[in-house]
């Protein structure tokens, strides 16, 4: 069976999704979702442990060899991303049960889980495939299910946010198809490895730079790179809490992965950074993202929205690492991919707990929660410290590598601006902490601690935030290996 892991990783959730929809039992469809995500985690771990040493798994779908058939190709880079997605899913799905029961109408819950599993399938599929058109198909599977999930939020603005996301996301996806189409027209292949061999011969044509441009814009839309992030704050704010936690921790990460795969594997770093000089665009945009959206986050009154803007800033950190186009920079970016998933997942889950008990996530609704919901707010504090980058949390590890990469590139002012971003995080996180711990609670609203079924997944993520902040051996090893593969450096 382990030979078929790459495809089973995707097929099992893909089959689980319609079953969950057909069963129409809240508990059963939730259990199926749990099973699917845990299976994904098991498969992801199996894949990662096989490719950790630098090996590459190539799986020919249906026995058709590449480049004729669709190839699933797993190396340290996507095994890493798959692990992130699967890990977050297998924590977020158990968490979702209580939260969804409260926030989604009961006759829609089984459909909810069906869309949830489909979204997971799409994200895993994007990561595992080695075929560029297959990327598009899975991208649409994940995106369409994400639009549906977001629209299930309680507030009617969830509908408009989902619509807005649908429009922008579809434009992004269409840009990506245009880019893929142009590449296909020039080379006649859709296989990533095959493309990377055939593209150099046609690099000088006008079509390939145009394809590159379309793809870059498409990915930037999908990963919410400033200034193409406008869909994100509303979508994260009004989606059901569990969906926000899941999507915030995974969807943009996978989009970053797509960008990395196309830039480094398909086009090659030399073309992307020396010929197209995409770093000249990415670096300033990443810095502007970090600073401007952190500033916006400081002024938010809704904590989910605040965290959403913070996400855009954090994506800036990842893209900053990418734009340095060095092993150190990519390592930092890939590390932050994982680390940010952990911290944002924990923070959004904590807000889900607050939503569950208090029914609001506005800052003034947090008053006195430090006493009433001590575990939830403590989790928020740890997650917040991680965002800030306090030592012994994962955020520090990311920052350590990112600043070091910037300094190694001689960009000391970039390093300084990264620190400024951290300080802005102090402000927006502490605004919440201050209200939760220092403001007196309103009397007699009977708010109690969130149910254990939500607290346990939340604290699993919090523990991971600390564990991988103290013992970052595994994460740095895999991230470095992945960065070396992307840069084409063999250690």
């Amino acid at each position, binding site marked *: 069976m382990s030979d078929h892991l790459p495809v089973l990783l995707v097929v099992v959730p893909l089959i689980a999704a319609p079953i969950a929809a057909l069963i129409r039992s809240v508990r059963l469809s939730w259990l199926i979702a749990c099973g699917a995500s845990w299976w994904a985690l098991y498969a992801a771990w199996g894949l990662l442990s096989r490719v950790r040493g630098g090996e590459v798994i190539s799986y020919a779908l249906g026995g058709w060899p590449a480049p004729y058939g669709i190839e699933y190709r797993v190396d340290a880079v996507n095994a890493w991303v798959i692990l992130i997605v699967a890990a977050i899913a297998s924590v977020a799905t158990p968490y979702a049960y209580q939260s969804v029961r409260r926030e989604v109408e009961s006759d829609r819950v089984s459909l909810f889980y069906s869309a949830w599993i489909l979204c997971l399938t799409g994200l895993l599929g994007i990561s595992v495939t080695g075929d560029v058109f297959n990327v598009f198909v899975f991208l*649409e599977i994940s995106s369409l299910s994400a639009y549906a999930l977001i629209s299930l939020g309680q507030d009617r603005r969830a509908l408009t946010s*989902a*619509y807005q996301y649908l429009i922008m996301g579809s434009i992004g996806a269409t840009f990506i198809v245009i880019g893929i189409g142009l590449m296909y027209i020039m080379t006649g292949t859709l296989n990533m490895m095959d493309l990377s061999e055939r593209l150099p011969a046609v690099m000088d044509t006008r079509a390939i730079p145009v394809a590159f441009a379309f793809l870059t814009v498409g990915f930037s839309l999908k990963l919410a790179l400033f200034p193409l992030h406008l869909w994100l704050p509303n979508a994260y704010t009004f989606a059901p809490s569990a969906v926000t936690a899941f999507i915030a921790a995974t969807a943009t990460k996978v989009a970053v992965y797509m960008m990395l795969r196309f830039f480094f594997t398909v086009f090659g770093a030399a073309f992307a950074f020396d010929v197209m000089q995409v770093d000249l665009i990415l670096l300033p945009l990443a810095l502007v993202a970090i600073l401007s959206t952190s500033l916006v986050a400081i002024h938010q009154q809704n904590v989910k929205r605040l965290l959403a803007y913070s996400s855009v800033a954090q994506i800036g950190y990842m893209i900053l690492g990418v734009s340095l186009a060095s092993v150190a920079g990519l390592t930092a970016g890939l590390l932050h991919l994982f680390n940010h998933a952990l911290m944002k997942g924990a923070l959004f889950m904590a807000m889900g707990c607050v939503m569950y008990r208090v029914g609001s996530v506005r800052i003034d609704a947090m008053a006195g929660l430090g006493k009433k919901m001590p575990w939830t707010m403590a989790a928020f504090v740890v997650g917040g410290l991680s965002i800030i980058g306090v030592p012994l949390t994962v955020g520090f590890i990311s920052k350590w590598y990112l600043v070091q990469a910037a300094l190694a590139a001689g960009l000391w002012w970039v390093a300084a601006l990264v620190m400024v971003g951290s300080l802005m995080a102090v402000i927006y996180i502490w605004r919440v902490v201050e209200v939760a711990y220092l403001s007196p609670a309103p009397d007699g609203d009977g708010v109690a601690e969130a149910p254990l079924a939500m607290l346990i997944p939340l604290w699993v993520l919090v523990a991971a935030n600390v564990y991988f902040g103290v013992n970052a051996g595994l994460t740095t090893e895999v991230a470095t290996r992945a960065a070396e593969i992307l840069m084409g450096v063999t250690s």
Partner: protein
Amino acid sequence: MNILGHFNYWIVIVLMMMGFYTVISRGNLVKKLIGLSLFQTSVFILYISAGKITGGTAPILIDDHGEAAEAASHVLYSNPLPHVLILTAIVVGIATTALGLSLVVRINEAYGTVEEEVIHNRDESL
């Protein structure tokens, strides 16, 4: 190799821009979706144009040994793959439009309008 020789690509560009412009400029949510569909359709034509080879015939594999096969290997085929890809893309496009329209229906139920500006104002006044 003149401008008219590439007329299908020109159509692609014109359609693409029309669709894109509609998405951006229209405030009516349904019209936006129409624009989006137009935009996606233009890409379909782009792919299909790429599959067309002048003088090419339908790509039917003749499973025959001998002369017929010999002759078949010299026949010029159109590339079938873009059509297959675009079938998938069309399905995706339909799904997108369907989902978008169902969102519009729900929005209409919730707000009583499908005009972006009105919706925006109603949320502001909350």
